């Protein structure tokens, strides 16, 4: 049996990675289980300068899902490098630094900064609005996905994973654009653009009016998109969206994911990601299988 997976030359002891924004920098969850049990940790989204984020409320609950609008609150890359980066490097777990920017120059500067980090990989959050392009998110148009990926690849010595937004006309086109820009891998899906309202006050629940939907309810959408991307590119895929169990992990891998991120489930179950690793391990052992054999093994009809 084998649980190890390899993405762009980086070995993960198992395919379970905690998703950006749902796990902080690991500190809080290390009270519940050793972080070394995980395959990887994706950090909270980092920006060049500290970011205050949106006023509250930042979260709304929907049927089997949540909508958030944190607005990238983070202490900034320099603070991360001085504190959390050092602490995380002592843990026996792959660290992926998630970075975001408001313009292309921000991403380039972040790509350079990450070279100083002990993180093994970089994940590009391209769902942020490009302030120099009228606020349209970097991740919408394929040409801008390619441009931002290439800009970071040109300066960053670490493997670059481009995280794709599902709020696009054709995610496979954007996967191809990331690959053309030199991405070492893609991860998907980021949250789905969404809204929750209070019919009594006729107001949105979130201060920001809208936010990103995640949780169990998005899994079927995510599975389809992972499958579409798997058929479009050769670079490895990290799948995510509503993962709550080891069977969800198996489904994502069958659709083409080399590894899987666990996000919202960390809120519901503080032990969630850890339990998924244990359950997956038990299953793989019982089946005496190599998890890599699952990747893209979907048998389609017709």
């Amino acid at each position, binding site marked *: 049996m084998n649980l190890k997976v390899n993405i762009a030359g980086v070995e993960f002891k198992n395919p379970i990675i905690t998703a950006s924004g749902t796990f902080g920098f690991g500190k809080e969850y290390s009270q519940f289980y050793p972080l070394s049990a995980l395959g990887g940790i994706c950090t909270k989204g980092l920006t060049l300068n500290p970011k205050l984020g949106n006023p*509250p409320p930042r979260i709304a609950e929907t049927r089997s899902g949540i909508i958030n609008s944190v607005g990238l609150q983070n202490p900034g890359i320099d603070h991360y490098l001085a504190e959390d980066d050092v602490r995380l490097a002592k843990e026996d777990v792959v660290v992926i630094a998630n970075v975001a920017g408001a313009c292309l120059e921000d991403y380039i500067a972040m790509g350079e900064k990450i070279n100083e980090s002990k993180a093994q990989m970089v994940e590009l959050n391209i769902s942020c609005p490009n302030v120099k392009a009228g606020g349209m998110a970097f991740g919408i148009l394929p040409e801008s996905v390619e441009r931002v990926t290439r800009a970071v690849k040109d300066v960053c010595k670490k493997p670059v994973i481009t995280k794709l937004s599902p709020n696009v006309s054709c995610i496979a086109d954007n996967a191809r654009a990331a690959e053309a820009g030199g991405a070492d891998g893609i991860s998907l899906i980021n949250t789905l653009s969404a809204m929750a309202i209070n019919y009594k006050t006729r107001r949105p629940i979130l201060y920001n009016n809208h936010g990103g939907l995640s949780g169990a309810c998005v899994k079927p959408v995510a599975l389809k998109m992972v499958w579409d991307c798997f058929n479009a590119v050769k670079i490895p895929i990290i799948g995510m969206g509503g993962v709550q169990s080891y069977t969800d992990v198996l489904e994502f891998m069958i659709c083409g994911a080399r590894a899987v991120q666990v996000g919202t489930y960390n*809120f*519901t179950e503080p032990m969630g990601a850890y339990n998924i690793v244990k359950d997956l391990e038990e299953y793989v052992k019982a089946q005496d299988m190599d998890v890599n054999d699952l990747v893209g093994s979907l048998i389609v009809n017709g």
Partner: protein
Amino acid sequence: MSIRETSCTVLSNKAVADGIFEMELSTDRVDDILGGQFVNIKLPTSDTLLRRPFCLCDFDERRKSFTICYAVVGKGTETLSHVKTGEVLKATLPLGNGWDPRGKYSKIMLVGGGMGSAVLPAVARRSEGVDCVCYLGFADKSKAVLEDRLRSLCSEVVVATDNGSYGRKGFVTDVAKEDIIKSGVEAVFCCGPEVMYKALKRALADVDIPVYISLEQRMGCGIGACLVCNCMIERDGKQGYYRVCKDGPVFKLSEVVL
């Protein structure tokens, strides 16, 4: 003191006032509980993903249990109100910073507004050696809860209702503010709606008594990782967002930007 994921058996779950319930749950964490802390409870349904945070209303060291007091206001509390004795709920506790007046003050005042009063019994119980006086405010008699519980823990309990249907008539902050100065309390702990905190801030602007309040916000993880339950705090002349679940829920009133 560490937080932990536990399984808690429901020892009782009963209505104590109009739409208000008290639930007692078993726990092995009683010794770690401070007043002002909270518990994040997983509901026995798959409809709602998020756990529900409730303040630790009271605890019983002998019975190894804690109590939450909640009003049925939405889907989550509705589900909770139907939970039966003997059911087991997953819960993470104790969460948040809490407040410990022991060794710091000899006399304190506890002020509760509506369901905010639910925080006070645990605060009073963890105030061994401290004289507690308590002021409770409710909309009307049908919503008045926890008075008896607090009488057994405080040297004095004053109840006010907005419409005068029970106790003194008027807002509890108006009733309490005169006595805060007269009664020689050294600190105030208050929990209620934001409007109460604003009133208290105005009323005590010239009084040099520390006032601690417990904040509430929609939460995600409850342990400080997701950053959704932010509140604006001013410390050392600098404003910034803090986490209600981890840096709070108890803050000094003078620091909270209302």
